[in-house]
């Protein structure tokens, strides 16, 4: 298995293209670029890349339209790379099926981490049965949580929330996604109950809830759990 991971970059800005290509080329990825949405869609179909980096401002199609079309036939992981920092746009892209989101300008490590996480979650591979990071360990089979080796007690909802985030460690989950997964399809739009539960979990696992090490907030978007070191 020495085939390089193949990434399709759909982006029309030349300087962004050359920066991302150089950055990821050095990391060992093989990159193909498309300068328009249509070209991107056709290359996605013909090349079947392992991952797509998608800019939202394209000369022909809106990036969200590209994403919508892509998602009608493909599960290829998509990471959005956009200059827009509006939370509604992030939420829209994520709820349309994007795997993650990076705002330009970004730090090299940020993009690499998002790509790594999206690839890891894509390969039909069942999430590791153990989540482990720093001093936190969650056994997803036995449904137990340990902090510094001490078992901690979570309510049922708290455990469901924490394990959902742990299974998706490293990637952002929107409020909507979490509400639907935990409270079911008819969950209320209001995310207050979710957020209060998160605040309670933080009080149980974080040393300082205002400087979290495990559960990161993306205000207006959702939550992201620290990457799993065990897998």
């Amino acid at each position: 298995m020495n085939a390089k991971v193949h990434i399709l970059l759909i982006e029309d800005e030349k300087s962004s293209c050359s920066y991302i290509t150089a950055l990821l080329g050095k990391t060992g990825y093989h990159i193909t670029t498309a300068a328009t949405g249509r070209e991107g869609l056709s290359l996605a179909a013909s090349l079947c890349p392992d991952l797509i980096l998608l800019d939202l401002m394209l000369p022909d199609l809106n990036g969200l339209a590209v994403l919508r079309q892509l998602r009608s036939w493909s599960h290829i992981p998509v990471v959005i790379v956009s200059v827009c920092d509006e939370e509604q746009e992030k939420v829209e892209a994520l709820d349309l099926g994007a795997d993650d989101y990076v705002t330009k300008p970004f730090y090299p490590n940020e993009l690499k981490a998002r790509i790594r996480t999206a690839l890891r979650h894509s390969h039909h591979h069942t999430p590791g049965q153990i989540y482990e990071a720093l001093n936190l360990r969650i056994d997803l089979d036995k449904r137990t949580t340990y902090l510094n080796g001490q078992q901690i007690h979570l309510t049922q909802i708290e455990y469901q929330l924490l394990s959902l985030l742990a299974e998706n460690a490293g990637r952002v989950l929107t409020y909507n996604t979490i509400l639907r997964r935990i409270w079911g399809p008819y969950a209320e739009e209001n995310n207050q109950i979710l957020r209060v539960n998160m605040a309670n979990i933080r009080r149980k696992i974080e040393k300082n809830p205002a400087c979290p090490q495990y559960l990161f907030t993306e205000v207006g978007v959702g939550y992201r759990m620290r990457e799993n070191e065990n897998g």
Partner: protein
Amino acid sequence: MHNKPLHSLQHPDHSNQHRLFAALGIAAAAGAVTGALASRLINRKPSQNPLFAALGTAASGSAAGVLASRLIYQKPKKAAPKPIEEEDLEKIRDSLMRIIFHDLRTPLSGIMGNSLLYLEGSKTLDDTEKLQLVTHIHKDSSWLLNIVENLPAIARIRDMEHGFCTRVEIVEEVLGETVHKMETRHPDFKIHVAIPEEILLLPMDALLIEQVLINLLENALLHSGGCEPVDIIVEDGEDFATFIVRDYGQGIPENMLGHLFDSSRLADETWDSRKKTGIGLLICKAVISAHRGTITARNHSLGAEFIFTLPKKAR
């Protein structure tokens, strides 16, 4: 297309005069297209107002930004102790626009100059010199990013006045994201955060409050040299919650203390350190005022602290 805020702001099709002024300020900053755009704007609205015509002339001049702000704004009123009214917010916002677009030029010209030097001297420069040029480019672009990140805040302040955008937020989430962003940008920068034990909920526009905290923290980093950690302390009160950003640096010179949040000081060319402290604090003031809170600055025995309050009940 809501790409590139600059472009949309530059669009000459603004209806009211305030926005026109703002657009002119931008035209001045944009440099190359200044003359053309300014005259187009003026032709469109023939000088109903002598001030406006004067501004047109100013816009084609070189010191446009500074001159423009002097022309439009007369002597500042004393800052009122009560939360400022909408009219004042409008004023603050307009002067912010002008200042920002004027200030964009400084890091931008650094980037252009240094990169040109690099390109022209690619054969004659030695490695150390090249490294130095690229380091300057990198620093200037970070500075530019700081300015640009304040731009969406101005639009959001407008929405706030109409009562949009405030949601009940969990304070620790807003602090957590802010601290995370700062630590990503400045890996060596240490921030201590102390919050009340109880979950504290406040109505706010979280992104605006984050921007306030980021501006105060960037400021603290700049003036304390980043050696000592900076404290963020949140205290719950009956009607208001209080946020304190405390640094352990050189403190604020006495003569500046009274004018930190005063937009008139930006027209004052003798305000020499304004380069990097200008807009950040004015944005803070505008944001906190739009939330009906207060913001003040003072020195303590080991440095400076900024204190702002937010009401616990939405309007």
